């Protein structure tokens, strides 16, 4: 087991009531595993079916593997401009 801190923003931060969510996962872990683990945390039921995830500040595939030390963020639908 390891704990991955995941940055959340905007509506996702409201859902989890925090800016960073500590997510317990077993290693090795993919982005999909991480999202699944977040769904069962309080507020995680408010995530959409396929939330966007950024790994080290770049959009990542669901199959990408997550290592301890990676910067992980959940990206709500963007609305800049």
């Amino acid at each position: 087991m390891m704990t991955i801190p995941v940055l959340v923003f905007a509506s996702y931060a409201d859902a989890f009531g925090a800016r960073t969510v500590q997510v317990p996962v077993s290693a090795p872990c993919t982005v999909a595993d991480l999202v699944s683990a977040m769904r069962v945390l309080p507020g995680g039921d408010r995530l959409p079916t396929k939330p966007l995830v950024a790994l080290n500040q770049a959009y990542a595939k669901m199959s990408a593997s997550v290592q301890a030390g990676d910067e992980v963020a959940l990206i709500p639908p963007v609305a800049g401009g």
Partner: protein
Amino acid sequence: MTTPTFAPATEPGCEPFIALVTAPIDLAQLVQRVSHASVGAIATFLGTVREFNDGRAVTGIDYEAYEPMAHREMDAIAGEAAERFPGVRVNVVHRLGTLAVGEVSVAIACAHARRAPAADAMRMVIEELKVRVPIWKREHYADGEFTWVDPSGNPR
């Protein structure tokens, strides 16, 4: 005796200037930075806070970003614009924090020797920004409610 030297009109664009700021955006500064003797056309875009969105009276908008990634994505977009429109000079500044109706949320300036690449680059940068850059906005309404905007339902 020295002869004045002129940079060729086809010289590569300057390094793109990208910023996330909390103070009001000054368009003149962006125009200044993309200006150059080789430039014949400057296209700019300003996004401003509208008083109405989707039929609701808006009183203000909070902008929030995943700042380091937003900066990277804006930088990547500027790089892609420079690849697609060689020689284009790109500036993008996005404001964060709370904005009132009429205030500028984003400013883009694209300069080029010719008008088509300047205008096309400007358009490309705002379109890409809207779909890729991790920035969010929470609209506040006249009735006291507020909500994070999901552009899939509320395109501007």
